[in-house]
């Protein structure tokens, strides 16, 4: 069964604002990854956070992981119209697959 669940399902903000998306999961994980998908296109890997890490940064992206709550958040700072996309978390539980959530559809208005 699918593992990650993102919220909100949709988020609309103005350019320059920060966007926060959350992901919850059910089983223990080795790592959690965030992906971005432009409409109808492939999945682009954004960032991987291991189960023993609590926070990770990459450019304007900040990811946190709370294994006690089985949740992660993705923060995009100073958003741009080009950040408009769907964002998915995917969990790696050590078996040879990744389980994706339903995604958050982010719209950044110019």
């Amino acid at each position, binding site marked *: 069964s699918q593992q990650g669940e993102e919220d909100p399902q949709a988020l609309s903000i103005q350019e320059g604002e920060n966007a926060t998306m959350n992901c919850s999961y059910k089983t223990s994980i080795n790592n959690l990854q965030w992906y971005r998908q432009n409409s109808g296109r*492939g999945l682009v890997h954004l960032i*991987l956070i291991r189960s023993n890490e609590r926070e990770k940064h990459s450019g304007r992206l900040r990811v946190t992981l709370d294994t006690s709550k089985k949740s992660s958040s993705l923060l995009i700072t100073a958003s741009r119209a080009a950040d408009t996309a769907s964002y998915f978390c995917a969990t790696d539980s050590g078996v040879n*697959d990744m389980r994706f959530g339903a995604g958050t559809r982010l719209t950044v208005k110019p």
Partner: protein
Amino acid sequence: EPEVTQTPSHQVTQMGQEVILRCVPISNHLYFYWYRQILGQKVEFLVSFYNNEISEKSEIFDDQFSVERPDGSNFTLKIRSTKLEDSAMYFCASSELGPPRDTEAFFGQGTRLTVV
């Protein structure tokens, strides 16, 4: 930058026909995956493949589906007798490492399969 390549980008097929979706993973990667995404829905895991055999498969991956690595570069997904509900975007992915994995999986741009 190396990338996963999928062909065709769009395939239209009649119900009951067989289709083969093709993928060229990144050359030094050892683990390969197929996922699908029905329009507007989640990305769903289908199957993973390592060392010329299936490692994991989901409940979606029934007897109608098969995967193959026919040569050193291609990785294919075959659907034997397509159904309308097989219409989806199919993504191939590859990763250098397997579980516990500390490197990301790289995804192709997808093949949009439309069954009519």
